[in-house]
């Protein structure tokens, strides 16, 4: 399962695993579930904001700041990188760049979700210690 970690998730995800223990066995999954919920809301809001004419770059930047924050908190490295790029386009007032980057972001996010779902399935079968990105 280390391939799930490489590239998509960074050390922050390992930190989350470290915060999990027998008393809090579902901590990682709880955090990730919150992340899915938060992300779904943000993606919807960003989509709506991207449909406006003219684009409100401040609003877009603010939404993406939140998305970047939560992605960073769970270690979603690639999604976070797209958020950063998106914000650069916002600051440059480049609407096309924003839209393009957002499409890429959604792809990365979808891939991440699949990886995480596989991770949790495996964790349920063999136990989190075996699944952990870093051997305990």
């Amino acid at each position, binding site marked *: 399962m280390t391939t799930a970690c490489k590239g998509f998730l960074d050390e922050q995800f390992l*930190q989350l695993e470290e*915060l999990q223990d027998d008393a*809090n066995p579902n901590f990682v999954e709880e*955090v990730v579930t919150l992340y899915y919920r938060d992300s779904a809301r943000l993606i919807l809001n960003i989509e709506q904001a991207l449909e406006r004419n003219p684009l409100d770059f401040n609003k877009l930047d603010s939404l993406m700041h939140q998305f970047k*924050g939560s992605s*960073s*908190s769970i270690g979603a490295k690639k999604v976070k990188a797209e958020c950063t790029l998106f914000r650069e386009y916002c600051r440059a007032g480049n609407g096309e760049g924003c839209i393009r980057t957002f499409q890429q972001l959604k792809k990365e996010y979808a891939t991440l979700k699949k990886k995480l779902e596989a991770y949790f399935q495996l964790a349920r079968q063999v136990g989190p210690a075996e699944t952990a990105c870093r051997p305990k």
Partner: protein
Amino acid sequence: MSIAADSKFHVLAVDDSLIDRKLIERLLKISSFQVTTVDSGSKALEFLGLHEDDQSNPEKPSVSPNNHQEVEVNLIITDYCMPGMSGYDLLKKIKESSSLRNIPVVIMSSENVPSRITRCLQEGAEEFFLKPVQLSDLNRLKPHMMKTKVKTQNQESNEIQLVEKSEIQSQLQQQQPQSPLSPTPPQQQQPPNNNKRKAMEEGLSPDRTRPRYNDITTVV
């Protein structure tokens, strides 16, 4: 309930992000802190017993922070970027409050902006953590909380024991500068008799002692 609470430091964590609140709560609990989380600066102030229209009254002596709080808070850790009241605004309000300004405040931010960090530290923040916050960051918190706890205990015990302490000191005939709260002027440090004791008690007027509290509360 409050007895158990006394043995652990109590941290108030402020963050508008649900994920980050969950994370910081877990980090703090693992570090053996008692935790309360709120999602905004105004809720934090409410919890601390300070309402936004409250002005800190300079006439009013600042004694123990527990005057205004229902629960003792030993440290406040807050996100910088929040809608409405930012972490910086919250920091300012806390430092402007005579009842809260002794509580150490730590700022967290996902953005590494040197001018932001400087501004917060200048305003009185003890530390500035970059997000995502790590367990190792939290190890730096205990010393800041120890300072406050000791100070608070000193204030409380001094309040209660003021009279007794002065009596003991006069009996020991000490010249120690130890207790700055001792109101005994040099000439009274003689073998005690009832007259002297009375003089000392009379010396313990609020006017004399209160200013000393203020001295202590401003020492960091």
